[in-house]
């Protein structure tokens, strides 16, 4: 009975530790609400730590040429993007861009340690919130995708 309790405690501890680790980088949220007679709603909340892993995984199945093109274009800009994101992360919350015209409103904000994009137009309302660290890791994954894809295929 004591052994069973110990095993349960270890399992519960592992689950709690795993969940804590998974959620440590915050969450990516994508919420889309279409307008119209039969509006569709999409609301996805995923641990941000999974995003770069998903990007790496997806890169193995995306067309190789496309991944190499994306990687080649992104690679020279990775240090710049990382520097910009790191600097952005250290700043106070602020609106970076706000564009409004009849029927359309786009806002890009830095809130906490996330970049938040809100688009409100005639077709849909879109809300995307992504932790800055996850964006940085994902860009690095895509930039490295071509190299890792080659080694993955070689193995």
């Amino acid at each position, binding site marked *: 009975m004591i052994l069973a309790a110990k095993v349960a405690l270890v399992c519960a501890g592992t689950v709690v530790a795993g969940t804590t680790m998974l959620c440590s980088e915050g969450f990516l949220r994508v919420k889309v609400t279409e307008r119209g007679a039969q509006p569709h709603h999409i609301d996805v909340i995923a641990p941000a730590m999974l995003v770069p892993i998903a990007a790496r995984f997806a890169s193995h199945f995306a067309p190789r040429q496309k991944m190499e093109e994306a990687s080649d274009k992104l690679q*020279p800009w990775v*240090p*710049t993007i990382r*520097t*910009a994101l790191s*600097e*952005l992360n250290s*700043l*106070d919350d*602020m*609106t*970076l*861009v*706000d*564009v*409004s*015209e*009849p029927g359309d409103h786009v806002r890009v904000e830095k809130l906490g340690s996330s970049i938040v994009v809100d688009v409100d137009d005639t077709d849909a309302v879109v809300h995307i919130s992504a932790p800055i660290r996850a964006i940085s890791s994902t860009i690095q994954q895509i930039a490295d995708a071509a190299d890792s894809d080659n080694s993955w295929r070689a193995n």
Partner: protein
Amino acid sequence: MRKQIQAIPVFCLLAAGLVAMPHTASAAPADRYLHVRVEDTSKSENVNVNLPLSMAETVLPAVNKGPLHDGRVTIPAGKSNGIDIHAIMEAVRTAPDGEFVTVKEKDQDVSVSKVNGNIVVRVRDSKKSGQTVDATIPMKVVNALVSGTKSNELDIAAAIRAMGDAGDTLIITVQDATQHVRVWVDSRNTQE
């Protein structure tokens, strides 16, 4: 009782530290922001951009592409048209306040002058719906742009740094019948 007496100086030290902390924090230079606002009344469009200067200052040296490298831009040999930018800047820097260039045409007036340590450019164009352009660039920024660079280089990162030190500045306004563009620097991260 003795312990309580010993605790008094410690408490005083902590209190002094707490009082001093905000002063220490406020001594650090405040972040400066570049703001761009475009209003188009004919289309009811508004564009607002807020960019921390510290970010631009940090990111620019990381960009090494084309003519931009280490925060400096190199003017290609064939593009300068024989104009020595450094010599012009030096002449402007040492010149007293006054109007340097005045061009008056039927539909357009252009003037470039130096006023209170700023380079002021004014354009009035009656052809383009009475468009007016006013640009005020602090001399500090102009100096930073050319100081310590080769004759065909401009130090953009240094200019941004100088812009941050120059205080609240309205840099450019463009106004015509329907559009209004403003570019300015201040210490607020909003446009309110």
